[in-house]
């Protein structure tokens, strides 16, 4: 009996292949297999897949000696289903559910999927064989995510090669642009704590240019990104008049402006708070308050990436160290543009 196996699923799984019957041989050939996602007509993006609501993307089974899906064709009577589950703001997940209509569950190595719900989804393909057994192929990271370490050199281990990967669905065009702009800053030290940053070269007699050296710039990063990415329809306020600064016009929006409802120093009309049970989605702004986390003394704010991590200006770099549900950065509130 000749058998072959597909490697790269939840476990290496041998499959009987009657066509390879040979009384004199007993062997198993394992063929590496995987799944991948990409935009229509594109190759997989190393920064992850992020589409906006109602856009389509493609899912592929990749298993073959030359990187094609040819081993799929060797498997008799197989049925595939693509499933996803959204991450919640506490780091837990919804139940797995089909990403396509039930009628699309079929013998297919490829699937075109419509992104109809905003959120950050883990993905898997379930392959059901003729004997009713099921093989699960989770979407895995092909490489370490960019900027996966914090300032102390500690990696966010869920961002390492081989860990579960995601796709993201932004609520709208602006949210997708905000996320894309934030990604372009990953690794930058321009917003590091020690950096000096002039908010406005001449703030004028009624404004204060706050000292930025030796202070966290997470709020400045988010305000800049939100305004740079905007198409003109969803700007965020820039100058605010906090009591902390004697009610003078001062720094860009603070962390609390994004966390509290109503915003502490501003109205943020284009960035309303989401419902308490809303799911994080790419391009949203996520914030903790000043007292958040275990013994923490200050809040923090960042932009949600496709995989639910925060793209945030940390002490050293713009990075993806924080994941949904990190107790040190909880509780969180989310604000979203269209």
């Amino acid at each position: 009996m000749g058998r072959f196996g597909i490697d790269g699923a939840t476990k290496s799984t041998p499959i009987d292949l009657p066509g390879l019957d040979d009384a004199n041989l007993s062997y198993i050939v394992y063929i590496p297999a995987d799944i991948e996602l990409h935009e229509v007509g594109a190759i997989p993006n190393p920064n992850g897949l992020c589409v906006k609501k109602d856009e389509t993307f493609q899912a592929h089974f990749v298993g073959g000696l030359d990187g094609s899906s040819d081993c799929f064709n060797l498997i008799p009577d197989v049925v595939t289903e693509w499933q996803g589950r959204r991450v919640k703001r506490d780091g837990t997940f919804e139940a797995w559910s089909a990403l396509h209509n039930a009628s699309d569950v079929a013998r297919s190595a490829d699937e075109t999927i419509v992104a109809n719900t905003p959120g950050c989804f883990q993905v898997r393909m379930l392959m059901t064989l003729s004997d009713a057994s099921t093989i699960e192929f989770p979407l895995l990271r092909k490489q370490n995510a960019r900027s996966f370490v914090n300032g102390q050199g500690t990696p966010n281990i869920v961002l390492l090669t081989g860990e579960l990967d995601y796709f993201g669905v932004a609520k709208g065009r602006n949210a997708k642009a905000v996320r894309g702009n934030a990604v372009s800053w990953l690794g930058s030290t321009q917003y590091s704590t020690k950096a000096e940053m002039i908010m406005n070269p001449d703030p004028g007699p009624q404004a204060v240019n706050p000292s930025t050296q030796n202070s966290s710039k997470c709020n400045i990063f988010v305000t800049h990104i939100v305004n740079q990415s905007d198409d003109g329809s969803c700007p965020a306020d820039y100058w605010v008049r906090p009591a902390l600064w004697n009610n003078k016009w001062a720094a860009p929006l603070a962390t609390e402006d994004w966390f509290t409802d109503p915003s502490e120093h501003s109205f943020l009309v284009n960035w309303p708070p989401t419902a308490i049970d809303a799911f994080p989605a790419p391009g949203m702004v996520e914030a903790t308050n000043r007292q958040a986390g275990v013994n923490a003394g200050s809040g923090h704010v960042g932009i949600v990436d496709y995989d639910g991590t925060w793209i945030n200006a940390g002490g050293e770099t713009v990075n993806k160290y924080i994941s949904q549900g990190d107790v040190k950065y909880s509780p969180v509130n989310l604000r979203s543009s269209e």
Partner: protein
Amino acid sequence: MKIIIASMLLLISSPLSRSVEFPPEIVKGFQKSEFLEGGGIAIEGDRAAFISFVTNNWRSLTDDLDSLPPSDLPSIYPNGQHEYSVAILGTACETLQPEEYVSFLQKWVGLFEKDQIPLRVMENSLSGVTNSKRNFVSANWQEPRIQAILRRAIEKTPKASTEQINLFTGMLTGKCAGDYLNSQSDVIVRPQTLAGVKLVDSDLGVVDRVKRMASGKRSLSAEDVDSAKQRGITAYLTPGGSLWPVCVAGIVLLLALGAVLRGKRRKASMR
């Protein structure tokens, strides 16, 4: 007999006898505590107990950094988990009172000189990670012991690390203090200061700052106003931190005075 006494003395003075016992909770604190991306530190377990342990034992702990329980957090740096614990120790010591913190920094920079702590940890301690010591060194730049600490840190920092050298030099010359003072509102909590130290920078003395206040660009603290008065400068602090209500009041007063004088002249001429 002499040998026995010498052995006992050796035993008493040996590092082993000074080593610190780490209760399980404190071990956990070193293993699990974490720096936060928004600034500050999240201490695992009983924060007060951890801080109390560190502040009571910092001299012994800094005598034997190798004894610190290494962090459990993975690190991409070689020796990163030990260095993480060292950084946690340095940050927890920021809760020391100002005078004792200077003593700590003196010892800390000595360890930096001996390559026992890395540059990034030294930089943390000079900049201040937590609110209690953020900008403390910058604010006290005139104090001779602070100056000595900064000079030693600059001397030891590799020449290629220009960013850190510029930062430490900015602290040493008062530039950092100036940047801070020229941009901060007076109602903000200010850095702690050592005895006899006033928050001043090298380029902009209190006289210029009073002039700035008069131009409405910034307000002054009550301490600044007192200092200005000592120099023969009259300065007023209004609730909003602005001079304009005083100016308006002054103009109104002058106009009223002018009106009264004109009235008197008119009456005199009528007579």
